[in-house]
């Protein structure tokens, strides 16, 4: 019974991986796969708000655009936004956390106080403020997400570095006169890598949620961009009649975020046997 459960668990992670691969491929080959690749920018007012059919699998929107085609192109926006934003926040947050955790005195405390300021309000509020000031552009959304997400990584790496610094192999390296940057890169970073990888997967999912919320509030890329959040916002006016218009992008978000979360869970089981069981739910935890 227990063995069965373990296999099932891995299968779930595998399912996440397959779903993600399908979505990524669909995004890459959107121009080929989309039945109506031009529908991202063109209007067919005669065909507006058609229910799902063989010609339009997920129906059409208020401009007569094929929702399925728009979803495929929207996946590009969503994935690019999330990947760049998370990469930038990791690139900023990890070095800061490493340095702060390695020299936890004045400098480290100072860095952590700075990240405290960012963490004192929900990320979406700061991201909204930045995105609104800079104007609704996809670059601005990415910038807003990166600028507000790095403190999370700094915090995480700070805590893990402080723990790792007390490990005997790190103390030994320090005692042997290995220079600090080498200790950080060659000894501490590999030790905390598993938890970084896990959080990256879950963080990608979380970032997609925030980004789509910005899009929903009108702070994402401007129309006629097929950004999923904006598609849902636009579809609201046509409820309850054209329910498919609002349903499809929401399902797309749900499936994609779920895939990232499941992969994160699966990675946790594989990469971090220490965490198995006792902290299996630390998904997306701040600290």
């Amino acid at each position, binding site marked *: 019974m227990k063995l069965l459960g373990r296999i099932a668990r891995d299968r779930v992670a595998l399912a996440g991986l397959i779903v993600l691969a399908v979505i990524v491929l669909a995004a890459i080959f959107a121009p080929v796969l989309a039945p109506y690749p031009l529908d991202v920018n063109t209007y067919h007012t005669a065909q507006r708000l058609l229910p799902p059919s063989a010609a339009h699998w997920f129906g059409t929107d208020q401009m007569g655009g094929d929702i399925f085609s728009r979803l495929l192109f929207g996946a590009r926006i969503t994935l690019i936004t999330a990947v760049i934003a998370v990469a930038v926040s990791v690139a900023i947050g990890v070095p800061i956390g490493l340095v702060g955790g390695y020299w936890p005195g004045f400098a480290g405390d100072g860095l952590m106080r*700075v990240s405290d300021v960012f963490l004192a309000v929900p990320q979406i*509020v700061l991201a909204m*403020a930045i995105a609104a000031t*800079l104007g609704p552009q996809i670059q601005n959304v990415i910038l807003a997400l990166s600028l507000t997400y790095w403190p999370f990584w700094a915090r995480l790496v700070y805590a893990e570095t402080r723990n790792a610094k007390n490990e005997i192999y790190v103390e030994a390296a320090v005692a042997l006169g290995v220079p600090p940057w080498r200790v950080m890169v060659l000894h501490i970073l590999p030790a905390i890598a598993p938890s970084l990888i896990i959080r990256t997967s879950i963080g990608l999912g979380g970032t997609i949620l925030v980004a789509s919320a910005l899009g929903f*509030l009108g702070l994402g890329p401007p129309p006629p961009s097929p950004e999923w959040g904006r598609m849902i916002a636009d579809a609201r006016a046509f409820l309850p009649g054209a329910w498919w218009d609002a349903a499809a992008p929401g399902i797309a978000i*749900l499936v994609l975020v779920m895939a990232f*979360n499941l992969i994160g869970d699966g990675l946790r089981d594989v990469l971090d046997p220490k965490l198995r069981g006792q902290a*299996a739910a630390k998904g*997306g935890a701040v600290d």
Partner: protein
Amino acid sequence: MRLLGLIARRLVWVPATLIGLVVLVFVISHLVPSDPARILAGENATTAQVAALRHKMGLDQPLPVQLLRYVIDVARGNMGVSLYTQTPVAGEIWRRLPATMELAFYAMLLAVLLGVPLGVVAALRRNSWFDHVLRVVTVSGLAIAAFWFAILLQLLFSMWLNLTPVQGRISDFGPSGVTGFYTIDAAISGNWSTELDVLRHLALPVITLAFPAMATIVRFTRAGVIGTLGSFFVDYQRAMGVPWRVTVWRYVLRSALTGTLTQIGLVFGNLLAGAVVVEAVFDWPGLGQFAVNSILQSDYNAILGFTIYVGVMFIVVNLLIDVGQVLLDPRGR
């Protein structure tokens, strides 16, 4: 004594964090040069009129001076005037606070009341069908976009089934009362039809907010219980004849909840973040809607005010959690 020390040590950082927050948001809102005076003066205003207004608002001063004046004003409890409504920001926030708090309170209550028992049962029946079903539910709860879930609920319960109102906090006027929580004010005045109306308005936004919060609590409780079930004291009590249910629901749960409590801050933060979009969807007259409106209108006095308020709330909640943690775990005392 240790408790007082902890509170003192934390409180020392509160002003610094808040000033940092004000500076941060101030910088953000001035990233792009904008001219609120021009917007305010209207399209037909002459250049001279705009300049006069700009001078009156202190916008002709250098940015650092503006910032300093703002910080001093906030310290005096003055958050300035909303550029759009022309009303004091502090008053507006104070007026809207109960709406958001009522929403957050019931969402948190629902999430805890459902999440803790479900988490315990899932842990006890690990890998059973119940556990698997619950896992699907919690994974969905953490992956669903709150604004979309809200719309889904509106579609189902308001538009198709006609059970709940689509939007708003109440059908006509709010009950008069001291708390600002309509559920409590209506109950105090014994106005049961209003109470029912208030509850019907509350239902969907509360469910929307509670769903991801519950998912988080279920996951942490489950992990905490599973972790604690491996403790030796569980075997010891079994060998010594203590019934299983007593060990689980008294001793194991208490240990697991001590761990879950640290996550309440996270849950609360997510709840506030969720409130921002959920209030926008349900046209709920709270702080979240205020924040969205202010941001969309670049009403930066309002943005600053809201951010400071949320920052204070967040810091207080985290402090309370730390205190609660110490109280729950005697080893920290």
